[in-house]
């Protein structure tokens, strides 16, 4: 608020005081400069000198008149308000009119008076036409009256109620061409014999059928009526659901979505694939030849010795038994664990020495069963005892990390029984896989994290774990039949490692949830995988990391899958549903040709116990004989 300008010489504001041009920015930005901004000419506006600290203190104690506490942007000094300005601020705060002398309630001044004058402005009398009927109107009314009399206008004429009928199809329009989006409503099917009021007696429901029909939800019934017999037409009652059925048909007509569906009217047998007959693909095992009874509890594992004469089995009773294949006679047995079951038995490859590796609990027992001739037995002993000396030397090296397993000599009792060495892995061993030369074998302990896989060397009595880090829960390992390659199956993936270069080659993705077992084809290029989610997957290693075929036919989890390694194109899968399925699986040398898979036979015989069926299968090394270990405590030979 500036004072009223008096138009005198002084009123010229050309030399108005300098104004700050910095614009709308906080003044603090200039705090560290001596100036507070620039005037219109670009000259610095210097900060006014501040009083001494005492002055400031005094100011704060005794507030000067008009003090606001704000800084004037133009001068940099304190912003003070005059008495007039303060009064105006107060009035605005109080909601009063800020200008002095304004009367908000001044009396109104009317431009025209609201009162009726006694004397009218015009004295002209009302015209006559305002009092007599209009001739023009009368003319118009007469026109309408005439029209009504003549019947041209009918007052309150009701509209035509009945739809006028005529020959709507008189023009013989051509039929509309069929459009794919035009779907006519399906007609209701004609009634069948059972809807008759007097049907043949065989259509009448029995008491049980009647009850079943009545108990069903009306929506689930395949017919909305029950056949009934009336001996005469006069006895036929009214049908309760007539209106309801018509109503539902109406709803169907306007509410049900219509879809075109083509019905396949073919013989279902023509859908079955054309496969070579199993008769042409003989030989394959078909019947039980021998049953090996003796184990108490489940038979967990079995193995055929390389010569194909002896069958070794291990079971929940902690024993390893050796049977003569042909007769089914138990030749030898040994009890390894007190309460631990034998999880895996595997004969060492090679015929020169009969060595059996059996895993029970944390220990792997290397056994030379006394069933061979002296030469073989001696060769076996030599193979197993050669390492003791080497182990002595290595033990002296203190810098070496502790090995994943300890090799030790068995107690006398066990030694007498035939055990030649014990490898203690410290974690429960579930699976053993031999290298083809018989010097190495790998053990799998799924709970062992990074030590789940251990590779043991017979000749040096040494053990090492190839993986530094855990790769997931490892299920199985297998050696490649002729290359230095190791296959490692975790729950979901199968990884192949090159053992010489010590690197990962490939990761196979079978796509199943939980792999239970797998086997490598003797050609080395194909792999079958069995999984707990009932699938059998065939991998062609050259083709892809995804399976070439996925087969799902077992009702329960697959426990074990095996190729025939002795040259016959056979493989099989064993499942918890108690069956073993035998396949013809021919791998062609030609890379362009895919493997031929033909299901051959379902072998039934094992009894399912505690929802476990067949736990392990093994092929004979040469013949087309199949061995299976069941949860019912028997092993079987099929041929």
């Amino acid at each position: 608020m500036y004072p009223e300008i008096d138009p005198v010489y002084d009123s010229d504001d050309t030399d108005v005081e300098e104004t700050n041009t910095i614009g709308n920015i906080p003044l603090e930005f200039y705090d560290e400069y001596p100036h507070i901004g620039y005037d219109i000419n670009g000259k610095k506006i210097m900060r006014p000198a501040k009083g001494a600290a005492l002055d400031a203190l005094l100011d704060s104690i005794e507030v000067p008149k008009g003090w606001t506490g704000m800084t004037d942007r133009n001068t940099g000094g304190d912003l003070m308000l005059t008495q007039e300005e303060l009064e105006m601020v107060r009035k605005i705060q109080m909601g009063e009119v800020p200008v002095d002398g304004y009367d908000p309630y001044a009396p109104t001044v009317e431009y025209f008076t609201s009162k009726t004058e006694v004397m009218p402005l015009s004295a002209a009398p009302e015209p006559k036409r305002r009092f007599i009927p209009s001739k023009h109107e009368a003319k118009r009314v007469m026109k309408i009256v005439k029209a009504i009399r003549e019947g041209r206008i009918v007052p309150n004429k009701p509209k035509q109620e009945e739809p006028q009928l005529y020959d709507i199809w008189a023009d013989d329009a051509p039929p509309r061409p069929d459009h794919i989006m035009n779907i006519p409503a399906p007609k209701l099917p004609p009634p069948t014999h059972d809807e008759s009021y007097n049907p043949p007696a065989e259509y009448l429901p029995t008491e049980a059928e009647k009850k079943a029909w009545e108990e069903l939800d009306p929506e689930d019934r395949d017919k909305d009526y029950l056949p009934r017999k009336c001996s005469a037409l006069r006895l036929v009652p009214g049908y309760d659901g007539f209106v309801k059925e018509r109503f539902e048909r109406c709803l169907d007509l306007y509410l049900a979505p219509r879809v075109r569906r083509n019905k396949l009217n073919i013989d279902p047998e023509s859908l079955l694939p054309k496969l070579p007959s199993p008769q042409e693909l003989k030989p394959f095992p078909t019947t039980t030849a021998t049953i090996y009874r003796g184990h108490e509890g489940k038979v967990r594992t079995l193995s055929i010795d390389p010569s194909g004469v002896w069958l070794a089995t291990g079971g929940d009773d902690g024993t390893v038994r050796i049977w003569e294949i042909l007769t089914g006679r138990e030749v030898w047995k040994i009890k390894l664990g007190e309460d631990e079951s034998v999880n895996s038995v595997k004969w060492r490859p090679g015929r020169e020495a009969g060595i059996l590796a059996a895993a029970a609990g944390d220990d792997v027992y290397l056994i030379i069963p006394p069933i061979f001739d002296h030469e073989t037995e001696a060769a076996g002993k030599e193979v197993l005892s050669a390492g003791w000396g080497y182990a002595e030397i290595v033990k002296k090296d203190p810098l070496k990390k502790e090995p994943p397993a300890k090799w030790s000599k068995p107690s006398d009792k066990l030694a007498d029984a035939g055990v030649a060495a014990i490898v203690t892995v410290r974690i429960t061993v579930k699976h053993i896989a031999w290298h083809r030369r018989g010097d190495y074998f790998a053990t799998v302990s799924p709970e062992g994290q990074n030590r789940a896989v251990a590779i043991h060397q017979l000749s040096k009595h040494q053990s090492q774990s190839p993986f530094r880090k855990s790769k997931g829960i490892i299920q199985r390992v297998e050696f490649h039949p002729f290359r230095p390659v190791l296959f490692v199956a975790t729950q979901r993936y199968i990884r192949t490692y090159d053992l010489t270069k010590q690197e990962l080659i490939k990761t196979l993705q079978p796509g199943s949830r939980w792999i239970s077992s797998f086997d490598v084809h003797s050609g080395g290029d194909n792999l079958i995988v069995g999984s707990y989610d009932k699938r059998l997957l065939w991998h062609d290693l050259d083709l892809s990391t995804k399976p070439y075929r996925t087969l799902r036919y077992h009702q329960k989890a697959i426990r074990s899958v095996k190729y025939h390694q002795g040259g016959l194109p056979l493989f099989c899968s064993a499942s918890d549903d108690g069956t073993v399925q035998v396949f013809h699986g021919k791998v062609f040398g030609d890379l362009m040709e895919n493997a031929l898979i033909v299901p051959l036979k379902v072998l039934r015989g094992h009894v399912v116990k505690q929802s476990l069926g067949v736990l392990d299968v093994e092929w004979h090394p040469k013949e087309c004989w199949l061995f299976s270990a069941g949860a019912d405590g028997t092993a079987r030979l099929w041929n």
Partner: protein
Amino acid sequence: MAKIKKKGVSGNAKNFITRTQAVRKLQVSLPDFRRLCIFKGIYPREPRNKKKANKGSTQSTTFYYTKDIQYLLHEPVLQKFRDHKAFAKKLQKALGRGDYSDAKRLETTQKPVIRLDHIVKERYPTFTDALRDLDDALSMIHLFASLPTNENLPPATVANCARLTREWAHYVIRAGALRKSFLSIKGIYYQAEVGGGQEVFWLVPYGFAQNVPVDVDFRIMHTFVEFYTTLVGFVLFRLYALEGLVYPPRFDKDADENAGGLGAFRIEKDLTIDTFTPAASSSDPLPQPTPSQTTSTSTTLFANTTFYLSRETPREPLEFLLRSFGCKRIGWDGVLGAGAYTEDASDTSITHQVVDRPPTFPPAAEGDASAPPTAATGRVPGRIYIQPQYIWDCINAGRILPPGEYAPGALLPPHLSPWVKPGEGYDPTAALPDVEHGKASSDSDSGSDNGMQEDLASDSDSEPTAPTTTAPEEEEEEEDEEEDEEDEESAAYQRELTAEAAGTNPAADKKKKKEKKKKSKKTRQQREEEDQKEMKKIMMSRRKRKLYEKMVYSNAKKEGEVEGLKRKRRRLEGKGKKEGEA
């Protein structure tokens, strides 16, 4: 690279529209939309890809074809709906003011009338199309003709429906179009051949008061009936014109009040149609088409008979049927209404009398007509007494059947549906194949049941009531047998020895064993075949396997039903035979 297609502008996304969207687009209320859909015959669709049609949402909704809805946008009936809304407001206003005369004037002059003829023409461009869709219309009209009126069902509608049903009946009689009929527990089915080979099929309820459930929405039904009456009206107009008759036929109110039935309508020849007269009698005598050319020999089935309907018989269907099949003289008891040929039951010209009451006299021996007339029976000699089913069976058979089986009080032969084609499924008229073949000997009931059970091992529908306890055991045994076949042979000698020691006859045992073995071998072969199929299924893709299994299941179900019927019949026949022997 091909041009990238924008999402949601073509295909499923564009072709389909949800119901809410449709209602919004048309700016109508949901009930109006429903009426519109019923009139126009617009129905929801099932898009191939629901997700694409629903803008990415998978919520289940009703879809309409977008073009259907687009056509609705300029539908005259839609405009009428809007007019009606405006009219309803005016009327409401007048009534609210208490201005009743104004309301009445509005009601009579301004109420919009919905005409549906253009829709009929649009939905059915040709007459054949209309005839093809006549089934539902006729069934609905016949139902509405017999319904009680209520606030949703004005008496005018019911009367209109009743009139149309009779006009339809008159046409069918006149044209001799009726082909077949069937007495079902739901009502009476009729089938007629109209307009050059179009088969029309309708259901008429029995003459009882209908049970109207509470959950039936009469507004929907009424909308349908509104359209159907229009459709049937136009169809009848055309049909009458084709027959050279005047439509609508003259309605005799007095006759209707006296329960004249069909006789309440007077059918007249249309004299305005030029009848073709040969210019000269000497010109070539080509056979000229007569108006009712569809008349076949079957329509003159009852031409030479005179029927009399007793008072307990349903007059309407019988009159309709008899007239359709050429019977000119039908008399009935006075109770059944006016218009009878004769109401005197003792009229000597009557050849057949339809009776449906239990006989008060001992049933006469065969050869009804030849039975000696006695005063006690109340029978008039020289006429055939039959039950109503006789007429239906004669019509469906296409010839006059011997009336012996249909005598009053006699146990009627089963009434069969004429639309079940022979050779499809189970045929109750065909004799059962030899009992030996089915393994089931009707003499030993339990044994036969067991055998059937085995036959239908795959059939899930088989009765659980049959004694099944022995079946699994047997199966297990067989299984064992199969496995241990070789063991068995070696052990046979051993067993023989033990049997001998026990003192039983080993020879008999052996014989039994052999029989059993034979049986097991047969089942074994079957099982092998089944195994083969199962194994082939392993190599099928999942989609094909599902399809295959579905087909096998439905086939087995059908066969199971037929088997079940056969089994039941066998048992019944066996029982009948036993009773006969006893």
